[in-house]
Every structure is written in structure tokens, then in C-alpha cells.
């Protein structure tokens, strides 16, 4: 833990953290790994996101796929919970809906391993504060 004592320090830290997260998704970066985010708000957990997240963590490790599985908040697609976002380095993030462990297996085998698209993709239908 670092205590931040000035705006300058904060700015430096922000830049460092940003570069680090950009580097993760860079195609050319040899150390870059796949990022998997599981929507874990109350709604997601209630629809079964927790076992899906555990499954993804365990299986990716078991199958020797270096990946970073993290939790995140609500992705706003209530109708399609549990939702999972997968970012393969160098590619746009893809969000999958209605993910159970069976679907998670399909995502690992087809999308993560082979780059093939699987059913249940939710298109990003919003602008962000950076794009606007």
C-alpha cells in the first residue's frame, strides 16, 4: 500500500497503471495474457456468476492457458446474466451472455483457444466518456 501525498504522485501512478493495463492488451507484448471479467453484482451472483468464475479460474489454469480472471460490477445486461467479458490481447473485448459452466467451457475451447466465435455474444451498444 502506498499513501498518495500529492496530485503529481497520483498522476504518475495513474499513468503507470494505465500503461500496465494497456500493455496487457497489446498484441506485440509477449507478456500479455487473456483477460476475463465476470460481472459479479448482486444480480450476476444471483444468476450463478460465482460458480462460473470459479470454473473459469480453475479450468484455465488446468488447461494451461495464462489468463487473468477478475470480478467486475454490473455489465447492465440483466436479461443475459451471468455475463462474461473476454479480452484476447490485440482484439476488441467480447461480451458473452447466459454463461453457465457449459458455456464457459465452450468459450475456453472455441473462443479463447481457437478464436472462433460462439453464440450468445452481446454487442457493445454504448459510447464511453472517452469516445464521446
Amino acid at each position, binding site marked *: 500500500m502506498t499513501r*498518495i501525498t500529492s496530485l503529481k504522485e497520483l498522476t504518475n501512478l495513474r499513468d503507470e497503471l*494505465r500503461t500496465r493495463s494497456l500493455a496487457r492488451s497489446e498484441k506485440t507484448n509477449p507478456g500479455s495474457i487473456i483477460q476475463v471479467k465476470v460481472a459479479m*453484482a*448482486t444480480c450476476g451472483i444471483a444468476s450463478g456468476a460465482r460458480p462460473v468464475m470459479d470454473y473459469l479460474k480453475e479450468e484455465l489454469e488446468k488447461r494451461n492457458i495464462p489468463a487473468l480472471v477478475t470480478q*467486475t460490477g*454490473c455489465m*447492465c445486461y*440483466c436479461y443475459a446474466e451471468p455475463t462474461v467479458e473476454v479480452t484476447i490481447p490485440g482484439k476488441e473485448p467480447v461480451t458473452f451472455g447466459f454463461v453457465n459452466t457449459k458455456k464457459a467451457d465452450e468459450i475456453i475451447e472455441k473462443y479463447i483457444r481457437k478464436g472462433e466465435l460462439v453464440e450468445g455474444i452481446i454487442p457493445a451498444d454504448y459510447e464511453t466518456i472517452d469516445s464521446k
Partner: protein
Amino acid sequence: MAKKQLRIALRNCGVIDPEKIEDYIGRDGYMALGKVLTELSPEATIEIIKKSGLRGRGGGGFPTGLKWEITRKVESTQKYVVCNADEGDPGAFMDRSVLEGDPHSVLEAMAINGYCTGADKGLIYIRAEYPLAVERLKIAMKQALEWGFLGDNILGTGFKFNIEIRYGAGAFVCGEETALIHSMEGLRGEPTVKPPFPSEEGYLGKPTNVNNVETYANVPVIILKGWEWFSKIGTGKSKGTKVFALAGKIRNVGLIEVPMGTTLREVIYEIGGGLQEGAVFKAVQTGGPSGGCLMTKHLDIPIDYDNLIAAGSMMGSGGMIVMDDSNCMVSIAKFYLDFTVEESCGKCSPCRIGNKRLSELLEKITKGDGTLEDLDKLRNLSTVIKDTSLCGLGQTSPNPVLSTIENFYDEYYEHVTAKKCRSGVCKSLMMYIIDAEKCIGCTLCARNCPVNAITGERKQAHTIDPEKCIKCGACMEKCKFGAIFIN
């Protein structure tokens, strides 16, 4: 197709890990606080919020900058910043999502508010029914304290700000700011007459700035991107975006955030993907129990505070429920009213007694005993309740009744004159009838009727005794010849 949504309040939801402060900082977290503390005076900051045109997202729509300015100008040795996270509308979960997905944004904005108004203490009033939101808030608060974004000498500027959590026990009226403050003080959650406004005399009698979760979530972005950027989004008097919880007979149930001025049609048919299969649009309810039901002719109005009020509804905190032919508008009005009756604190008589009487009148109509005179009574009583109630709850509680009478008068008319409910919801008004032409006398319906209301000889047309019939619909479901219908 152009993207209709713009995520400002929800910018980090579903993007960052809400339990990692590093994720938030990597997305400009606490930069707005840093900028304000080092580069801007409280007055200049308030000016930015005022110019941005941000208005309260909890429902009232009061200009946020103005509220901050009023709180700043009141002289006092102690002031408070309060975050209203008592989200009570049925079917609304915008604030919960922000708190669970991006708790730091609220903490940051509260600290900014503290700097602007001169408060060093913040309180988050949150429903105890949101355990995960509470847990993530606590984690965020602990981290912010450790990293030096809360506590003493924040970012080396000498500014001090601390935040505590207060739990609500789930009373709808506690979303009203004066009731909320009383609840935090340990008193009964009842509203009091304004003025004095909380900005003048609030928590423990001290000036208190109360804003909603979503309002706070907008603040850091406005500081960092500038008021010019923010005020370009939206309509004349409603700037920025609004988060809605889209629910009901819609295909894509979910949270959406759209710029003010987006039409209901765009929200329902483009973002929401239209109605569920087989459903035909009838109405859209906005503003929860304080709002109203809008119909097809309203679909093209641009959503903002003023347009919704003009149409007889309101923005509210952002619930949006889409209804179809299977929803009876009288019953919908009754549903919301029963909620208000349940949640009325009972302090003032128009709300306590008036809403109860409204509910009884609606009950009478749905039972088939209503008269045309009752419709007038509904209207008059609603107006009296609106005009004379003490707080926002009572002043808006008749809205569902008024808007449904206004927009769906023919349905009310049918209920009281023809004693008919076209949606088949009001069971007392329904009658199951057997078509003698189609009935072949197979006796299947009679054998399935739980109350033996169906009689008839084998191979002869059967009949249903309306006195005995409990309208369960079992006969209609079983009939293989489509001989049973509802009148």
C-alpha cells in the same frame, strides 16, 4: 447504427474490479479530487457544477450546483455531506449497480462536495437490504483511507474528510431528504416541512448537502472533462445522461444510460430490443410510485425532467417498466397505490387517509362495483392529495392514478359501465363461458373444475355456473376444442 447509449455514471461499471482501488485510479480515479484540491477554489468548483447543468438524479431534479452553493453559504462550524443510497422504487436498481460496480466514484464526489461546501464529514445512507453494496463500499472506504484519499491531509493539501455508513431499514419515505436525515438521527423516518431545507438545517441541525448516488457518480467526470463537455449532452434544461432500469415486457431487460433527450421509442425499440415475443406495446411507466403511465402517443417525446412532467409522469429515480395488453391499467394504478398506502409514514392526513380512500375506490372498480361518479371522485381526491400532502411522497402518490385515468380513460370507463376488464386481469369482472356450438360434451372440463361449477350431460354442450366459478382458468386450459372463452 449509431450507438444510442452513453455511459457516464456507469463508466466503470462492468469494467473495473470494484474491490481494487488501482483499477479505479487507472481510469482517472481521484484525479478530479486532486484537481479540485490543488488547482481550484471551492467557489470555482461549484461554478463548474452549476454551469454543467447537472440536476439531482434521485427524482426531484434540483440543480446540484445551486444546492452546493446554498450549503456553502450557510455559516456553521460543522457541516455534513450525505449520499442518499436509499433506493426504494419497485424495480429500480441503478444506485445499487453504481455502488456495487464503482463505489470509489461516489466517495470521490462526496469528498469534492465536502471541499466545496466546507464539510469534513460524509454519511452514506444505504438500505441494509443491499449487503453486497455495503460490503464493497466498506472495502472502498478502507482503501481510500489507506491510500490517502480520505482522512486527514488528503493529497498533501491539508483537506480533511471522513465518511461513515448509516443503514436504512427499508422505508420508502426515507428516500425523502428530511425523513432520511431524521432516520439517521435515530428518530422516526418522517419528513418535516421545508424550509428549512437540509442545506440550511439538516443532520443534527447543521447544514447538510444531500445528493443521490447517481448525481455523485457524474461529478468527477464533469470536473475532469469540463462543464462545456457535459452541458453539450442533453436538452435545454436537462443536461447529461440518465440511467434507467428497463424492465417489464421488454426483450432486453437491463440497465441503460442514455443522453437526456433520447425518446422513449428509441429506448424501448432500439436499446431495449422492442417488446417480448407476442407482446403489443400498451404503456410505459416511469418514475416508480411517484410517476405515471405514458402511452403510444408519448413515445416520441424526448426524455427529460420537464417533458416527462408535462406528460403527466416524472423522471423519478429511473425505473422504467414497459407494459403490454395483458396489463390492466386500473390494476396497475392500484398496485402502485397499494405500495404508497403501505409506505406512507402516516404523519399528514391527505397522504395517510387520502391514499387509502383512493385505493378503496380502485378496489371497488376492479371488483366491478365502480360507478362513473367514482371516476370523478378519484380525480378530485387525487388533486387534493397532491396539493395538500406534506412531502414528495404524498405530493406525487396519485400520479399513477391520474395518468392512467387521463391516458386510459376508456379502460376505466369499461370497468365501471360494461363491467369488463379487457386485459383479463380483474378476476371479478371475468366470466368463463362455454361455446355450445364448439362443445362436444367430452366432460374433460367438468372433471378438471376444482369447484364443480361445470355441469352437462355426456355428448351434450356443458355450462359454467358463474356463481360457483372461481375463474381459475383450468377448464379453458384443458379444453381441446377451444370451446371455452372469456367474456
